[in-house]
């Protein structure tokens, strides 16, 4: 399994941050993603994202980040959001992260990290 990390930094409240990333060239199938932050509370209350793999929309715009977040009580083996076996094609991963204002949190710049889990060969145990 190939595990990759992609970071976005949100520096302005209410802003959108776009990231274009390339998956490892050896990765043939994207099987899951995970999302974390250095400020989970901001991610939970303020975040939403659109994720595209090439032309495939994995998560639509305004899909709230909290629906993908993972708590500490979850076994590490289960902390990935599975996507089936998406063919990576040319491996272009587009992420549009949106921060929207919430009176429950006070904004400060924060990092949002996306992890991509992919495999070279589906028949290989992973």
């Amino acid at each position, binding site marked *: 399994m190939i595990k990759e990390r992609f970071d976005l930094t949100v520096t302005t409240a209410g802003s959108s941050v776009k990231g274009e990333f390339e998956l490892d060239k050896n990765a043939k199938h994207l099987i*899951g993603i995970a999302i974390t932050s250095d400020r989970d509370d901001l991610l939970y209350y303020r975040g939403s994202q659109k994720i595209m793999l090439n032309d495939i929309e994995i998560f639509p715009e305004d899909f*709230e980040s909290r629906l993908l977040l993972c708590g500490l009580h979850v076994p590490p083996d289960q902390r990935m959001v599975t996507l089936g076996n998406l063919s990576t094609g040319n491996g272009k991963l587009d992420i549009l992260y949106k921060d929207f204002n919430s009176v429950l949190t006070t904004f400060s710049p924060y990092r949002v990290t996306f992890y991509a889990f992919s495999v070279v060969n589906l028949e290989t145990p992973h």
Partner: protein
Amino acid sequence: MHKVLVHTETVNNKAAKLQLQIKLPKDVKCIQSITITTTGFGTDPSPKREVGWLWLRLPNHSDVFFAEIVRSNVPEATLVSSALEFLPQEIGFGEAWIDGKSGTTLAVDVSEDAKILEGFYTDRLRETFFVPYQVSIYLNLEL
């Protein structure tokens, strides 16, 4: 093939009643699950507080097929299988999330000539100082 549709309504007034229409893709066959979330509360985001009521109906169903009492910070139903166990019930500043619950899948067939989901949402917050908030409806569709 699956597609997730997100529809967001902003509730600007206390006791507001919002009528909503969600256009479904032409090739939708089935609504596999529905998830509702709320955001933007200004005070007391305590778990399980009643926020509003939501009704949804499809033309091919003679009556409401989905009605939900929307509560704040209740573990959301899930759209992706592996998200089943890690939905936070409550989050504070620096507190660990301690609980979560899987959602229940609701499958509703959509007929070929019924491509609009309609319904309404009623605000039920009993707050002295009302703060506008958003209600998001996530539809997990089978195409």
